């Protein structure tokens, strides 16, 4: 494809910046210290542009258009405006949409306060569980973990993220989705030797450390990693703490 090394110069809010051609605009702008609100973007996974908060206006030649910056490949000479009246109008309404889905999410409440949005002008969705359908959990599970345990289902306003057919058989309870969720709507609990990812209804028994006896990770997950990475069967006999101690 295109050469990744070629550097291009362009403007963000009137300031001259430089980046590799084809790099996505949002991380470049954030790197330069511009503030663009965003929820569905994470450096570990590919851009998806679902939350629409990172909208900016880009002028290329004599055409100006509104676009999400997380999936916009930069090019020489473009002029980016991060906070025009139109951008703010869209962002404010999108924040209202998001607040009606995630009324308790601190991240969104903070962005909304900064944008001067008090609350949604429409009813909060009845089963609002703070999920904004950004798809970060789905992407991290597929692209980073490789477990493919969850997926989007249905379309339109019935869209949701679920394990296929509601059965979380492929979930290794690693917690990557819990960590990456921007609204904290995926919760993990550990009781005794059991770990549960509440949202996916996945409970797995944890493997006790052969040295200290403390349960440290689901056996299913450890075997899955051993299998994928072709590790020796007893690779995870010890918990991370004991393994470190043994090394020393």
């Amino acid at each position, binding site marked *: 494809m295109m050469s990744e090394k070629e550097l291009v110069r362009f403007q963000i809010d009137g300031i001259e910046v430089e980046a590799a051609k084809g790099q996505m605009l949002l991380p470049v702008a954030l790197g330069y210290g511009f503030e663009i609100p965003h929820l569905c973007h994470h450096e570990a996974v590919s851009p998806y542009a679902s939350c*629409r908060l990172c909208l900016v206006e880009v002028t290329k030649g004599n055409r100006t258009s509104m676009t999400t910056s997380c999936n916009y490949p930069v090019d020489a000479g473009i002029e980016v405006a991060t906070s025009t009246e139109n951008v703010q*109008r869209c962002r404010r309404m999108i924040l209202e949409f998001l607040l009606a889905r995630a009324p308790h999410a601190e991240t969104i409440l903070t962005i909304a306060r900064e944008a001067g949005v008090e609350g949604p002008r429409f009813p909060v969705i009845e089963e609002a569980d703070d999920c904004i359908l950004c798809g970060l959990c789905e992407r991290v599970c597929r692209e980073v973990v490789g477990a493919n345990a969850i997926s989007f289902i249905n379309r339109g306003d019935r869209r949701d993220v679920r394990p296929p057919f509601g059965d979380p058989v492929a979930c290794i309870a690693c917690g990557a989705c819990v960590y990456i969720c921007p609204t904290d709507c995926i919760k993990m609990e550990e009781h005794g030797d059991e770990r549960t990812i509440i949202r996916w209804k996945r409970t797995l028994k944890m493997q006790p450390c052969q040295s200290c006896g403390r349960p440290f990770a689901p056996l299913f997950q450890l075997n899955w990693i051993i299998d994928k990475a072709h590790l020796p069967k007893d690779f995870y006999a010890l918990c991370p703490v004991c393994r470190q101690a043994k090394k020393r």
Partner: protein
Amino acid sequence: MRLKSPDELERARTRILEERKAQEAKKRVVLCTGTGCRGAGALEVFDAFKKELGHQSVVEFKSTCCHGFCERGPITIIEPMGIFYQGVTPEHVPQIIAETVTKGRVIEDLLYQDPATGKAIPAEKEIPFYKKQQRLVFGHNRYIDPTRIEDYLAIGGYTALVKALFHMSPDQIVAEVKRSGLRGRGGGGFPAGRKWESCRRAHGDIKYVICNCDEGDPGAYMDRSLTEGNPHSVLEGMIIGAYAIGAHEGYVYVRNEYPLAVENVGIAIEQATRMGFLGKDILGSGFDFTLVINKGGGAFVAGESSALMASIEGYVAEPRAKHIHMTESGLWQRPTDLNNVETWANVPLIIEKGSDWYGSIGTQGSKGTKIFSLVGKINNTGLIEVPMGMTLREIVYDIGGGIPGGKRFKAVQTGGPSGGCIPERLLDLPVDFDELTKVGSMMGSGGMIVMDESTCMVDVAKYFTHFLKDESCGKCTSCRDGTLRMYEVLDAITKGKGKEGDIEFLQELGWVTSEASLCALGGSAPNPVLSTIRYFRDEYEAHIREKRCPAGVCPALITYTIDPEACIACGKCRKECPTEAIAGEKKVPHEIDQAKCIKCGTCREVCPVDAVKVK
């Protein structure tokens, strides 16, 4: 028999034509068994003809797909006289054979009657519905049994392919399509030639061409009927396009809910491959091209080009950003040219007759003809093909035959579910890509839904917004929740819960949905709402301020009453009322108990003297 050169094709064609010439005087029965006529019972008529005619060789029987005049189906035409019979049932079949086929006598009862003069019209071409049309693309359906490639060859099929493969360079073909001014018939109206050119220039040894037959607009079926009725015209266009672009593989994407289209394209691909129009070394030209059918699962959004490609790749049909064009990085990141069924079917015409001829049809910015699906409150429901630039008035009144029941025209929605509603005062608008966009609607793929005075425009906006909120893929917050929230506001307005500021709120929601969403579904989703506000704002205001539905549609805002002067106390409404809300005795005018009335409208329907009033 695989044809290895243009000469072999011409010899095969001559043979077919000679055989047909020898049969020319023979009576022929042509029955439409397209999807519309099937719905009206054409398959039973088909069986009846088969049974009656048996294996006798004096009559040739042909079953075709859609002729267009679906309102009057099942349609039967008796050749060579060209007699048009409508509403044919199996019971008519023996009579048709005994009278018309055998003795040449016309059966008056089965003829179309001109509503203006009351006169019966025997000849198909004299029927007003057909008279003003220019059926360059769709008109061939009536001569073709889509399961027989010979029928397509008999009307000159694959002549354009020969011209393209043997007498034109790929660059010349691209230039010719560019010069013709052909614009994409699927919705966007992007110049097809420019798309081809950028795909031809794109780097890559593997390129693809795709035919988009997803359609899926409620009430529209032109791509379906063209694919069902004349699949080879689509294939021929695709082979020419593939040659021009440099593609050797192609896909026909058809939704699985179109079983007849899937079947007929399948047969066409198989026959074209067998005869050497597809596969290796097409007609000895050295050009290879293969075609595969991909069945879609029926999501409206799968008709969006990038979503369609995701679907072919095996993923959920979700659009993706097109900062890099599909013509450079499309299906499996390869340069891909996607055109709609009707666009492809126009290609052989342009190549055969030339861009000058093609450019002489239509308007400045929109060349050629367009097939429309004319449905709703219109006398002549069906598929029509007219030159670009014909006015809405001509389409609705001259071809469509006006509004049934003497009612008044109110609006026409063009462009599918996300098109806009155009009011009566714009009836003289010439229909082309740019004019429709100017008035807040769009060409889309050619849906045309006619509405009369009994249609509530707020209810219409609500209906289409409901469709779009269901059919949004749900990825973009702005589209998923924008359509949902517009629907909620509209629903409240129709239920008498509208409040001041709702109109402005809808406009703001519509603006954000359109501006902030990724693909054209979100981009055009507010059209039904914004266009009805633009042209029928008074109806919104009546709902909101006066809690009144002027068209008498929204149940929460209307009351049924019985006019005591008009009531003849026949008791019909009292008997039919499902909630026993009507009281009255013989000779005493009836009355409706508003507390019990559920506003179903049954009383109004059954009243023989029109005494039930809606307010």
